């Protein structure tokens, strides 16, 4: 279910997002003016170390920050509306129809006492009016397929006629909707390549393997056809082989339902595999954004350079493993100016003074670093 957006444009725009956490140790300035945008139909990777603020960004977009967090500035524009200025009810609708988030560890994110199928079904049943067209279309498609194989029974033909005659904006009656929604949910379970979807519908999360549970979570996102899909470290808890399958599934589905993906990960290999563009995040800032190949070929920001240099290469015969010296900063008392400067091999006098602005150092390649101007 899409909001209003123009094609070729940005689905999501985050402008200067600032988020603070209030803890007993002090005020954690977690996000320090995050800027990013996701274009329609693309996969944007968001990379960074643990604690760099990737998940906080995702939760801010969804409006699901914990109670001790506060958004102190910025805008999050999705479907033409600033989510930070909306009321609770509007945000909930946005979560239902325009964006979907898939989380890291499917075991703790699925309700253990409800069946997998009911956890998908409840999404559809939240708003019958909105989802009627989808479930009806799915049913009509089934009937079409049945019609092509053999002829329809009288009952099926009548049903087909009735469903085709439903006006837009109409909500199906509860019982009929439940029936069609259940069939649709089972179909979705099939679309994410779960075996025996009918049986899977009635199973409980603890009966499934990690990969299957992750597919279920993806199914929950799929079922509402969001404009934006946020995937937060979805492969981190999985085996490498399963990882590959999930990523493949994701890219296929992206084209099928015409969604855009914000893929959060700390794994550069995943980024190289799947993403169109990449944003690198450090200590609450986006320090570099570029197309994938461009980033790997020409990393501009010293942090990105350090990250890429740190990847061990099987063909390097000698030499130490290189690493970035120092450690992640304490965000209660963050470094002044550019937050990376204490660890930066190329730091100079300008760096501690103020935060560098985002400049387009090469076409389509943006950096926040005084080395490139600003």
């Amino acid at each position, binding site marked *: 279910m899409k909001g209003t957006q123009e094609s070729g444009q940005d689905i999501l725009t985050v402008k200067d997002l600032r988020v603070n956490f209030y803890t007993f140790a002090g005020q954690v300035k977690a996000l320090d003016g995050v800027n990013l945008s996701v274009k329609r139909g693309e996969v944007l990777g968001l990379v960074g170390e643990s604690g760099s603020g990737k998940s906080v960004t995702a939760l801010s977009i969804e409006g699901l920050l914990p109670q001790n967090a506060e958004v102190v500035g910025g805008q999050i524009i999705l479907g033409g509306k600033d989510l930070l200025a909306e009321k609770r009810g509007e945000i909930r609708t946005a979560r239902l129809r325009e964006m979907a988030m898939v989380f890291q560890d499917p075991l703790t994110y699925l309700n253990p006492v409800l069946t997998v199928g009911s956890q998908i079904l409840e999404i559809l049943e939240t708003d019958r009016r909105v989802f009627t067209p989808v479930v009806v279309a799915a049913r009509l498609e089934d009937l079409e397929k049945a019609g092509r194989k053999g002829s329809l029974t009288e009952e099926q033909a009548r049903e087909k006629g009735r469903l085709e005659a439903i006006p837009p904006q109409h909500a199906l009656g509860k019982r009929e909707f439940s029936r069609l929604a259940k069939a649709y949910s089972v179909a979705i379970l099939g679309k994410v390549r779960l075996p025996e979807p009918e049986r899977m519908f009635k199973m409980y999360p603890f009966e499934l393997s990690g990969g299957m549970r992750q597919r279920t979570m993806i199914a929950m996102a799929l079922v509402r056809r969001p404009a934006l899909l946020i995937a937060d470290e979805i492969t981190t808890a999985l085996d490498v082989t399963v990882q590959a399958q999930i990523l493949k599934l994701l890219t296929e589905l992206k084209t099928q339902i015409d969604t855009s993906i914000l893929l959060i990960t700390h794994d550069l290999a995943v980024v190289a595999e799947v993403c169109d563009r990449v944003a690198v995040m450090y200590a609450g800032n986006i320090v570099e954004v570029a197309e994938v190949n461009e980033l790997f070929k020409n990393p501009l920001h010293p942090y990105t350079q350090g990250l890429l240099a740190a990847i061990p290469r099987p063909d390097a015969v000698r030499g130490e493993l290189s690493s970035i010296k120092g450690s992640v900063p304490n965000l209660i008392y963050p*470094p002044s100016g550019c937050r990376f400067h204490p660890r930066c091999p190329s730091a100079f006098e300008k760096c501690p003074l103020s935060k560098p602005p985002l400049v387009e150092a090469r076409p389509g390649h943006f950096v926040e670093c005084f080395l490139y101007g600003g």
Partner: protein
Amino acid sequence: MSEIVPPAEARRSADLRFALHLFRENPLVLAGLVLSVGSIAVALLSPFLVDPTSWQITHPILKNCWNNPLFGWGNANIQACPSPYALGTDSFGRNLLQMIVLAIPVDLQIALEVVLSAVTIGIVFGATASYAGGIADEVILRVTDIFLAVPGILLAIVFMVVFGRTIPVLTGAVVLIWWPTYVRLVRSQVLSEKEKPYVESLRSIGAGRLRLLFRHIVPNSIYPLLVQATLDIGSVILTVSALTFIGLSPSPLLPELGNLASLGSQYFFTAPWLIIFPGLTILLISLGFNLLGDGLRDILDPRLRR
């Protein structure tokens, strides 16, 4: 330039701020501290405040009188005492306030004895059950099942019917009610501690099982026991006073809060203070220890330290 505050100092001030935060969120914990420590103080000071033998002397003429200049009970049947008593007199003509002051240490002492005994029994049997496992564990568990199947008061009543109505029997009866809870608590604590990695590493370097149990596992399981014990002091006083209230006390003269209240049960319309004040004292003491126990649980619960 970069990070300014050294980490150790930051952590200490974080702890302090957390503790202050708890007190701010929960001013009641402070009230609990005041009430419980206050009652212990009264108990310790009571021999100096009131003559310890005064409960044995009755003054029939002064029965059930009230003469507090500050307020009355609006009931025409109240006799006036010749001299002002802060809380009136009881059915034996004794000064109710003095009796209450004498009763507080009696109750607290019984409660302390009960809780300490129950904790000890709990540690011995609970640790054995969980550590030895197998048949010993099953047997101990079934025995606790048996005791937990009966409401506490009934168990105590049966015990006192058989063995008499003295204070030691009363204490023993209440211990009977409480020990299964502690056995189960200790058992579950030890069971979860046993699985922790440090136990395995200690075993691998040859630590003996008994030494491991009492020098490592038990001390680490102490916090929930401490919380439960504090909470239980309040509950024990409630049970003891209920038992004496229904008549299971050695003597009607005994200065004990429930016993004092039972004297007033026949007169509660005409002399309500006989029940109100002893009962209020019980309420305040048990409230104090319950609040304190809750506060302890909040402070000691590692998961809330975020």
